[in-house]
């Protein structure tokens, strides 16, 4: 039987079948402070413990301040949630990378960098961007809190098998086009519901040519078109990245794992429920103009007219929120905020791209910029490479790791009515603070805007 990569991994994890639902075994479970407390309470109510504590890794990320992490958290509710995670991890004896721990960071940044994420696994987290880990050829998806409790209690989830989609991108990417542009381009084509019910495999030589970090950016945003998850077949780039990391297999285990990982690809004649292909040469730097990630255009294009869209009323409502008009070009739009961070673009390569561009230039005086590394490890590496100095010389500062302005649960909120050019993944109304207006871009575009003080 010709199988897709997705089927190969899924089928290996089915414990039993209940009608249309599979009892799916989960290899790794990442938890954070926001979606876990009620799950722990649930376990306590049932009087049960966790199934296998070695399969759970915890870290606080959503609520944490990005300045002065050595001090107690100011905001009482945030502090309470972070404390609760610590308390629960102690009670259930779960590994916690708490604040100031050298491994702390955004769940989806630390999993890969610590070698916790490995090809062929099933992984879940109470967070929709769990799809990030799919870059390793991993079935990874976000779940709700009841399911967090399920996995803690039984290491399994009841799941309907999604359909399979393949998105192929062949050809050579243009200079200055980053993986963020690829995924924003794809979502602008498929729409926010375009992949609902599907698990997406990204393929083609343009995808193959990307680094692991760039691949993670693509898989990360799979959820923004409704997909259950996204994945990329592991290859030499993947193995090279995983090798030697803290929790990666070593010695004989490595050889065994590697032999297995090399079987993880879609067979040549495997069939997908839906296939689509784009040419790499058609992709240009992208920017969003509306209030969902599907509302994106090339920087060189103008905002479409409402009448050319499927739902003119919703479209107009979006533009009104954004303070933008049909047919408008975003070039030269004055912007006062730049956010570089989030599980989409806060890895070392993203910081290098930003630093490399601003090196020897100056931040525009009107710009407030928050540059937030994805993890303690990224922060450390940035310092070791001297990126913090380059940033400082250009008028920027490197903050401490966390989700930050991606969802504005800490103090990093964009004021109402202000535009923020952001490397994060969601431009929903109020996502970066009540009334904030988000324009999603790549780290390179963010760097250009930070220097110019306007969209360029």
């Amino acid at each position, binding site marked *: 039987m010709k199988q897709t990569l997705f089927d190969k991994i899924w089928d290996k994890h089915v414990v039993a079948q209940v009608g249309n639902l599979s009892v799916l075994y989960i290899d790794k479970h990442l938890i954070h402070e926001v979606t876990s407390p*009620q799950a722990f309470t649930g376990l306590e109510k049932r009087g049960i413990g966790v199934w296998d504590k070695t399969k759970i890794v915890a870290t606080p990320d959503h609520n944490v301040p990005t300045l002065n992490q050595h001090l107690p958290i100011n905001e009482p509710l945030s502090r309470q949630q972070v404390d609760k995670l610590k308390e629960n991890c102690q009670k259930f004896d779960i590994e916690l990378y708490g604040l100031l721990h050298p491994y702390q960071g955004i769940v989806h940044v630390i999993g890969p960098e610590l070698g916790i994420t490995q090809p062929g696994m099933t992984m879940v987290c109470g*967070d929709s961007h769990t799809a990030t880990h799919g870059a390793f050829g991993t079935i990874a998806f976000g779940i709700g809190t009841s399911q967090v409790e399920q996995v803690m209690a039984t290491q399994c989830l009841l799941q309907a098998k999604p359909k399979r989609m393949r998105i192929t991108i062949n050809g050579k990417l243009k200079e200055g086009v980053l993986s963020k542009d690829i995924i924003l381009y794809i979502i602008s084509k498929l729409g926010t519901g375009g992949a609902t019910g599907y698990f997406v495999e990204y393929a083609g030589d343009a995808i193959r040519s990307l680094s692991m970090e760039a691949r993670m950016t693509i898989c990360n945003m799979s959820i923004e078109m409704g997909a259950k998850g996204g994945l990329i077949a592991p290859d030499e780039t993947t193995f090279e990245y995983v090798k030697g990391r803290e929790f990666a297999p070593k010695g004989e285990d490595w050889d065994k794992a590697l032999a297995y990982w090399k079987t993880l690809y879609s067979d040549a004649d495997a069939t997908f429920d839906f296939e689509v292909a784009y040419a790499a040469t058609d992709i240009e730097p992208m920017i969003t103009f509306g209030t969902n990630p599907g509302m994106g255009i090339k920087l060189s294009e103008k905002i479409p007219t409402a009448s050319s869209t499927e739902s003119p009323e919703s479209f107009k409502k979006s533009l009104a929120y954004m303070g933008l008009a049909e047919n408008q070009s975003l070039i030269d739009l004055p912007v006062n905020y730049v956010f570089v961070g989030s599980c989409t673009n806060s890895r070392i390569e993203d910081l290098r791209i930003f630093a490399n561009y601003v090196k020897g230039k100056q931040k525009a005086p009107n710009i407030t910029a928050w540059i937030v590394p994805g993890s303690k490890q990224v922060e450390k590496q940035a310092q070791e490479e001297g990126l913090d100095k380059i940033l400082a010389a250009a008028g920027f500062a490197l903050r401490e790791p966390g989700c930050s302005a991606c969802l504005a649960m800490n103090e990093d909120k964009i004021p109402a009515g202000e535009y923020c050019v952001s490397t994060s993944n969601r431009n929903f109304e109020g996502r970066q603070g009540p009334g904030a207006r988000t324009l999603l871009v790549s780290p390179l575009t963010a760097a250009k805007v930070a220097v110019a003080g306007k969209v360029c």
Partner: protein
Amino acid sequence: MQKFIKLNSPIIPLPIENIDTDQIIPARFLKATTRDGFGENLFRDWRYDANNQPIADFVLNNPQYKGNSVLVAGENFGCGSSREHAAWALHDYGIRVVVSSFFADIFRGNALNNSVLPVQVSKSFLARIFSFVEQGQEVSVTVDLEAQTIILDHTQESESFDIDPYKKTCLINGYDDIDYLLSMKEEIKKFEVQHPLF
């Protein structure tokens, strides 16, 4: 989990597409460590202005719709984050059924796990409901989980909807997945022995 069998209620119309979970419950309200009280902040930023004053033309502030337990929303309801708080907020507010022509995946699962029934209808049926609302008609519906039907009370137009048979049994009996999975402990242990991969 609360049982769901059959419900008759006037609707709350919200004809907006792609309603994401950040709108259903904004992130700043996710700091609680219990499941209670989220209803107060359901659609917070559409319901209240920056000074916490109710926004008059938002549907939840219209006394006509107070107490209704069926929300009818535009296509692709619940997209965005995995926060189950969205389902908790709806349930806590008193919503037991959400009708739309399309639901985001994670939201659908979260709703089903919290006794909020997602009823997916055809685009034309949805458009029909909204057209009655536009004409000033008060629309009420009967949702019968056993029969998997939704009926518009005043015209008796009906449509059937899909639901996974296992999930249907859970809702009707008030069981949840954990009860079920815990009954499979032995099988899971056996699986672990032959699954030495990670």
